[in-house]
């Protein structure tokens, strides 16, 4: 018997890997991902080397041995990036593993083979772990270079590899569980990231103090190898032991191994649950999952309403028929995210907690920068952006998937009419999502502004009114930009999951990258500030101290702030907040807040106005581009010129119905 006979055949794993290898997308993503990770790693490597040089480490620039032994510090800087890469990539890789079988209606075919449900789950898990490991392997040459510099203990290296492996397993099992539970890849994608984010946040918050908290492999790595103070780990004995530094390296490795047992148990539990749900939820309907949730919630609210008010109804859904804008009518009257009644539920669910937190903040807040409220603002914006991006991106692909698009496209409605009506149908949703955002802005206004001072001058009243109008307009403007961008990204896609993921990833990418580049005092800000200064070289008036800014410096910083806000997705909101900072309460901490670097109300107003106009222009451009490309991306052609609509004749009925004809 040959050795190959012992190895199980693993047909599903083989099929998955064959499919993966035959897709061009696999190589594109791997190439782009590798470039990003390697670039980040190399930049960090250079940064670390530069830091060591500047600190006088390894004196003698010509000495080839000057960096010997510095590998450990570089290694400690690089490895977290690998853990973060796993957290970011693993959910996206695995969330579609089982849902795609449900979407293609092939899951039944899998069940009638001799593969057991557990085998299916494990082979699916393996099929997604292999690409993740391949991706991590790409970074190993860099790790090898760092290892060769010395200072990295072998136990340190082995421990890191083990923890990376456990990290992959843990997040893959979460994604797999979501994939077996949900019917569509889109919902599995969102929940995978949601649970991954929650786990990452809670493990970082509570791993230190709670004895039963699940220490994720990443935080174990930080505890064991990055040298956290052991006292910081409170009751978590394993972590405190592994990070104590008193143990022999091998003992430390054993402790790290032991500390991963909870995460491995969690992985096993998630995989077992995935196996259970694979069978139980194999044939669930994907058609109206959200509608079902809303109906369940609706039932609860109706019962509550009956008990409390005796069944008084404020908002009624009327069964109307479409008159002029059929597409908008359907979005408003028939979709779960369009019906007034359901939207009111969403509003209650979102606005209730938001108002509660705002009230608490207003009641107990000391004079501070209200960072908690700004965190809340970020959260409600993240929820709103995700819902809008998903809805916008799937607005056409949903028609494609349900095979209703061709019928719609063969009507005289133009692509422009279809899309504008679709967006018109989303206006209610946008309003509902905007209300919690506006509530937080309004609370920030109340907390930041001393109304006794404001009311003393008509100019400041005007500025407050300006700010209020500004946050209302920029909120809707930003939402419109998000929706039109999502529609553009999702127009061509054949599947809802792909369109939603493409839109969410691209928009999230834009938000993260632009926020990083365009942050106050960041690269772009400093670069433009320096460019402006170099243009104005020789101008003696620019010399001034930090507290005594010259008009030229103010101008430079204003221009830099405008550029930063223009590249940022949330630029309009940031620029508008600059107005609040400039006009706001003198007791409020203003350091590094938004784009009012000169603390001048004039420059803040200029920045806000220019950025607002830019965003209006941006919206018009994106809208125009989407509408221009729409016919081609939808797969049909629309004529530009006007034409005479032929009058519709009422056809002559033949005598009798089909039943009568057959009879």
């Amino acid at each position, binding site marked *: 018997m040959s050795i190959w006979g012992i190895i199980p055949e693993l047909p599903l794993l083989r099929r998955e890997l064959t499919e993966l290898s035959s897709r061009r997308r696999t190589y594109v993503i791997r190439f782009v991902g590798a470039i990003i990770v390697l670039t980040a790693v190399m930049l960090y490597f250079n940064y670390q080397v530069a830091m060591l040089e500047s600190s006088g480490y390894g004196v003698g620039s010509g000495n080839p041995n000057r960096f010997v032994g510095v590998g450990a510090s570089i290694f400690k800087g690089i490895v977290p990036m690998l853990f973060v890469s796993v957290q970011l990539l693993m959910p996206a890789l695995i969330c579609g593993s089982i849902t795609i079988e449900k979407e293609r209606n092939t899951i039944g075919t899998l069940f009638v083979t001799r593969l057991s449900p557990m085998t299916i789950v494990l082979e699916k898990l393996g099929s997604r772990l292999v690409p993740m490991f391949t991706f991590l392997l790409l970074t190993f040459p860099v790790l090898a270079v760092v290892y060769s510099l010395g200072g990295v203990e072998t136990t340190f290296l082995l421990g890191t590899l083990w923890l990376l492996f456990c990290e992959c397993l843990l997040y893959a099992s979460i994604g797999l569980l979501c994939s077996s539970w949900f019917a569509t890849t889109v919902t599995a994608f969102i929940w995978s990231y949601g649970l991954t984010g929650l786990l990452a946040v809670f493990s970082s918050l509570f791993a230190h103090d709670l004895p039963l908290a699940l220490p994720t492999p990443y935080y174990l790595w930080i505890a064991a190898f990055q040298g956290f103070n052991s006292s910081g780990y409170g009751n978590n004995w394993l972590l405190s032991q592994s990070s104590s530094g008193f143990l022999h390296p091998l003992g430390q490795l054993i402790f790290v191994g032991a500390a991963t047992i909870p995460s491995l148990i969690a992985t096993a539990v998630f995989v077992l649950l995935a196996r259970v749900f694979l069978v139980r939820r194999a044939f669930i309907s994907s058609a109206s999952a959200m509608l079902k949730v809303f109906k369940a919630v609706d039932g609860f609210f109706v019962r509550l309403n009956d008990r409390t008010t005796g069944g008084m109804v404020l908002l009624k859904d009327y069964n109307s028929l479409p008159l002029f804008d059929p597409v908008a009518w359907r979005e408003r009257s028939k979709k779960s995210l369009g019906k007034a009644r359901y939207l009111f539920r969403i509003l209650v669910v979102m606005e209730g907690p938001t108002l509660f937190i705002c009230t608490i903040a207003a009641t107990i807040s000391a004079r501070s920068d209200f960072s908690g409220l700004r965190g809340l603002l970020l959260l409600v914006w993240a929820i709103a952006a995700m819902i809008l991006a998903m809805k916008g991106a799937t607005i056409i692909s949903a028609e494609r998937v349900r095979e209703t698009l061709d019928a719609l496209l*063969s009507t005289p409605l133009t692509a422009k009419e279809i899309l504008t009506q679709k967006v018109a149908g989303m206006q209610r949703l946008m309003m509902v999502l905007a209300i919690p955002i506006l509530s937080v802005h309004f609370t920030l206004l109340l907390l930041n502004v001393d109304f006794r001072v404001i009311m003393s001058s008509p100019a400041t009243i005007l500025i407050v009114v300006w700010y209020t109008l500004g946050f209302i307009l920029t909120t809707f403007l930003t939402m419109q930009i998000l929706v039109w961008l999502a529609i553009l990204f999702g127009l061509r896609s054949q599947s809802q999951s792909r369109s939603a993921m493409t839109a969410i990833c691209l928009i999230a990418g834009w938000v993260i990258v632009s926020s990083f580049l365009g942050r106050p005092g960041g690269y772009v800000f400093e670069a433009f500030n320096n460019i402006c200064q170099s243009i104005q070289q020789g101008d003696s008036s620019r010399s001034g101290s930090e507290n005594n800014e010259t008009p030229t410096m103010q101008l430079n910083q204003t221009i830099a702030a405008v550029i930063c806000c223009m590249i940022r997705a949330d630029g309009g909101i940031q620029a508008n907040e600059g107005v609040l900072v400039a006009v706001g309460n003198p007791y409020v901490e203003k350091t590094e807040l938004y784009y009012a670097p000169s603390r001048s109300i004039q420059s803040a107003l200029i920045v806000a106005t220019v950025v607002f106009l830019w965003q209006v222009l941006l919206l018009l451009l994106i809208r125009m581009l989407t509408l221009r490309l729409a*016919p081609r991306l939808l797969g049909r052609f629309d004529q530009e010129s006007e034409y005479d609509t032929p009058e*519709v004749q009422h*056809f002559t009925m033949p005598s009798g119905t089909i039943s009568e*004809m057959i009879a």
Partner: protein
Amino acid sequence: MSMTEPTMMAMPPKPKPLAICIRDLRVNYGKFEAVKGISLDIPHGEVFGFIGPNGAGKSSTFRVLATLQPKFRGMALVCGLDVLSQPQQVRHVMGFVPDFFGVYEDLTSLEYLHFFAAAYKLPISKRKGTIDDVLTLTDMTHKADSPVDSLSRGMKQRLALARVLLHDPKVLLLDEPSSGLDPRARIEMRELLKALREMGKTILISSHILQELSQLCTRIGIIELGHIVAQGSLNDIYRKLQLMRVIHVRVENPADDLLDRLQKIPGVGSVETQVDRWAIKLHEDLMSVADLHQALVEEKARLTMFQPEAMDMETAFMKLTEGKTA
């Protein structure tokens, strides 16, 4: 009589444009050429059957005519309107039923029809009457308030036909409307199409059920690998292919000499003995079916059954196509 009258009378009447006119149509998907130079002329009021294996180019041709295929070469006119330069006008005169029926699961049949009535920009005053009429015609009135999702496949296809009738199009493009229907639903669909033919609609229909097309179509076109391999009336095609008509005969006196005599009748190709009958293959161009009946009687055959087989379209299809698919 005015001076202009003689001139007007002398002018030849302007010919009515064809319902569908396709010239050298070519459709490419990347490097793959799905349609390779099809030309078709379909006059008004004709029911043209489009037959071909999967991947032959039928649906691509339909999509061009339905203004849903932006990239193609050649010319395609619907009622004299160019689909490339006048797509909006084409959409007003054409109704397209694709080969699948996607449902708006959240609408009832009535809402579905109102949705498309608004999409076809029907005047509001005419909508109710028109929708009532198409519901009556398609026998869907009792299902007006049922969710579209709950309808059977046959009812969904009838609803799809009702949808395309809303704006009273001159041309109907029906891509496999009977696909997946049970026998009753298929018969209902066929009767509905006959009613539409009587209403003067021009119908371009594709189907895999060849027998059905032979009963419905005035002309057929057989397409394979993007080429039209034959088109014309069924008789034309049989004549072209020199196909023999099969006539099933049962006689009371099936003696061997009678069989020999039958085989010698001019026009009879062969006589095959089956369990309870003889199958006579007849060259119709040499002898008509009625003449064969007369000849049999003259040969003293005591007939208990004389049954000419309907024109065998399947044979024609198999003979014309080679089973190649894209």
